[in-house]
């Protein structure tokens, strides 16, 4: 790749960035490695991964075993909506203090658990271990067993000590915890001719929109994992006939495990963008067509109806967006694939794309998907990102909380496609919202005052 794009990068980082060229085979991008110490990484930890996956289960108790900080920083920061109970929106912590670190925190944990279960009558309890618990060696399993035996609800330890890997390992720990629940209700495996929607957290109510598509074509949804889920629905997840996995980074492991254990086939899908949403619905029709031969036809009908509704609606926005350039920096690379396609519908070209946790296949696919001259980056940092955005003259950045002010400082439009989004961007309807969001920011008059001054200084 041209020197200027990697100028100033940590030596360590050079294998993690590339620029696509025309007519070449995709190459290996180094990824899945730990971040270099001292880098201003945008990544989080194991605990963070576990917390985001499990927290939407609204009738469970989520107790963070550690100092208050870990609970305070993750207190209701994602808009995972619940249609009923809201226990998950509280912040419960054992608030470990110095004496607990010396003498152990297990007694405190047990006391806290018993008190909370008595008070809130949750249907299950998750205990999240933080860094410190991994060091002081509290026997969380023993506490969980005792309290579970006495209270009669599942009490599930989540092995989410922050230092034990990356956010991905946190997803795995959360999936292990979910496996403690799945299959614990008496129904037979695959007894329902429906699906589970995995890796969907109901941000801004997206799970409800997606669910509705399946209801319209007569496919029951046993549970969403974990958006607006209940302990009871998670227990019955084994009764579905197939699984679809939306945020594959977080839940593909669980899908593989369910396939092994209960014979549920699964597909990786995405509900971002029109093609991918349509494909997801076709995939489900395909998975279940043996039970319902007319399902593919109903699916096609639904997709046709929705497309006819949505395409004219986004055409209005497309006129203003044609030829503009976008940069993408998101958590998982699979979502980036969908975003690139969605942006094309708006006439926009992706010139920078990166993720915190993408894998080698994701990055190869990105290289195939992107136009020549696109920068592809794993585990980036603010200085790099800003340089890429300016060098590639992006008009828009799609990212999360830490990226937003960087874009704004550069006078670049921004769309939050992470957990702080307030507007549903999934499904057919979501494409209209996405178009409106992007349009609203890209065409804002506010950039008039700054567009000419863009610059980065380290």
């Amino acid at each position, binding site marked *: 790749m041209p020197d200027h794009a990697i100028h100033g990068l940590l030596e360590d980082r050079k294998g993690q960035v590339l620029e696509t060229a025309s007519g070449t085979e995709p190459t290996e991008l180094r990824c899945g490695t730990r971040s270099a110490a001292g880098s201003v*990484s945008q990544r989080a930890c194991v605990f963070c991964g576990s917390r985001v996956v499990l927290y939407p289960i609204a009738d469970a108790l989520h107790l963070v075993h550690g100092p208050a900080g870990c609970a305070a920083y993750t207190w209701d920061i994602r808009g995972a909506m619940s249609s009923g109970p809201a226990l998950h929106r509280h912040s419960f912590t054992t608030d470990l203090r*110095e004496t607990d670190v010396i003498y152990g925190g297990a007694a405190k944990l047990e006391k*806290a658990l018993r008190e909370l279960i008595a008070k809130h009558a949750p249907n299950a309890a998750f205990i999240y271990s933080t860094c410190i618990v991994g060091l002081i060696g509290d026997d969380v399993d023993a506490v969980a067993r005792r309290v579970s035996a006495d209270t009669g609800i599942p009490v599930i330890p989540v092995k989410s000590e922050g230092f034990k890997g990356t956010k991905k390992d946190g997803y795995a720990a959360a999936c292990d915890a979910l496996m403690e629940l799945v299959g614990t209700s008496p129904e037979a495996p695959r007894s329902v001719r429906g699906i589970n929607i995995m890796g969907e957290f109901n941000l801004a109510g997206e799970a409800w929109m997606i669910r509705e598509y399946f209801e319209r074509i007569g496919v029951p949804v046993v549970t969403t994992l974990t958006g607006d889920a209940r302990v009871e629905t998670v227990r019955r997840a084994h009764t579905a006939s197939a699984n679809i996995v939306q945020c594959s980074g977080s839940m593909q492991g669980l899908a593989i495990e369910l396939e092994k254990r209960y014979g549920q086939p699964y597909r990786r899908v995405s509900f971002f963008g029109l093609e991918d949403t349509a494909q997801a619905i076709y995939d489900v029709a395909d998975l279940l067509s043996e039970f319902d031969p007319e399902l593919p036809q109903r699916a096609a009908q639904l997709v046709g109806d929705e497309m006819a509704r949505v395409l004219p609606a986004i055409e209005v926005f497309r006129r203003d967006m044609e030829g503009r350039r976008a940069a993408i920096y998101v958590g998982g690379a699979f979502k980036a694939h969908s975003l690139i396609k969605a942006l094309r519908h708006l006439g926009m070209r992706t010139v920078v794309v990166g993720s915190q946790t993408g894998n080698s296949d994701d990055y190869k696919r990105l290289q195939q998907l992107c136009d020549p001259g696109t920068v592809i980056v794993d585990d980036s940092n603010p200085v790099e990102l800003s340089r890429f955005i300016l060098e590639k003259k992006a008009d828009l950045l799609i990212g999360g909380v830490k990226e937003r002010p960087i874009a704004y400082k550069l*006078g670049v439009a921004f769309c939050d496609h992470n957990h702080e989004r307030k507007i549903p961007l999934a499904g057919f309807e979501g494409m209209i919202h996405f178009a409106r969001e992007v349009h609203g920011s890209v065409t804002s008059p506010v950039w008039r005052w700054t567009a000419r001054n863009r610059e980065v200084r380290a």
Partner: protein
Amino acid sequence: MLLRHTKPDNGVEREALVINPAKTCQPIGAMYAALGIHNCMPHSHGSQGCCAYHRSMLTRHFKEPVMAATSSFTEGASVFGGQANLLEALGNIFSVYNPDIVAVHTTCLSETIGDDVAQITSKAIESGKVPEGKRVIYASTPSYAGSHVTGFANMVKGMVDGLAGKTGTTQNTVNIIPGFVEPSDMEEIKRISAEMGVKTIVFPDTSGVLNGPMTGKFHMYPSGGATIEQLAATGDSKATLALGPVASAPAAKALDVKFKVPCEVIELPIGITATDRFVDALHRLAGVNVPELINRERGQLLDVMTDMHQYTYGKKVAIAGDPDHIVPLVEFLIDLDMKPIHVVTGTPGKAIPKRLEKALERVGRDVNVKVPGDLFQLHQWIKAEPVDLIIGNTHCKYIARDEDTPLLRLGFPIIDRVGHQYFPTLGYKGGLRLLEKILGILMDRQDRDAPEEAFELVM
């Protein structure tokens, strides 16, 4: 929304548990303090998540990019110690991000495995990881002790320990340590001092770092912050004025002990009485007179207090906040003839209840106080005895909604409104802003709730 239909459960003493914390952990305070040094990279010696969470939370609060690096601990580091990570980190930070200084704070992880940051830092300097002329300071900030406020205090003390010196010639400057307050407040402290003709070194100083203007440029290190030279010169100042015992006293006392710079510790200048004390302290320490402009600002605050005292009379208030904020705030509310009746802070500290008790002397009734307490506790008290106003951070909005009680956002974090970055709540002007907000909230509520016939045009 969350607890609307529940009954109060007073009298439950919870020891093992915090529900809806009114605090967060030390490292974020240390990170915030370090951002108040010019050209400084804060560094979190712990897991990646700590750094990511702190940066996200600070970004939500200030709506600005927040730069900080991390040692990216792994399982190996937790077994064998984090020395290799910190050495590698310092090398990388200086070579790639080129700050003048790195401010290292610890986490529960690095503290518990026993990393000696002082020793690792010396090693980094010996082995050439720290380029000539660059500096590294550090603070011990385990998450299982204190709170975000003590973390701030520890890093400010780290600035003194690591950078302050004495040339032997006392300068005509006063050090002011503003405490864990907004960039706008630090700016206001500097303005008041300048108006009074006092030469100051204000540290840390996040104004210009976390409330900078939109320029179309991204600066890794924005233009604000106390410089290394200023921090080095604090040992030559003729006095130190520490605002807030929890956040600012440790650094002030360190300057006193090490360099014999006499210090005075006062409450944050929130409201008229506390600001009078601040202005008086500046007047005494710097030997300057109070200029007409400052008197005029005081007079304006007093004027509005007079004009509107019937609207604040007897109004009940619940408060959650940091100790250095709530003590003078309680005092101000009592000056306004309001009744602070429920008060919690999440920050532990033996001296805090005594300070609160003294501030609450004139309230003339029993007050619920919990140190350390949490927002669940505050909510239960409000259910038992409702209030006219809640003052606290954004997390109080759940209580405000459940109990249909108005909320004045003050403290950290404020992640659902803007303004705190730009408009101070310290000083007479800050007092006026607070009062204007309180009145606006109370009177909007009166308008909303007034029966048609009692709905007033003139108030």
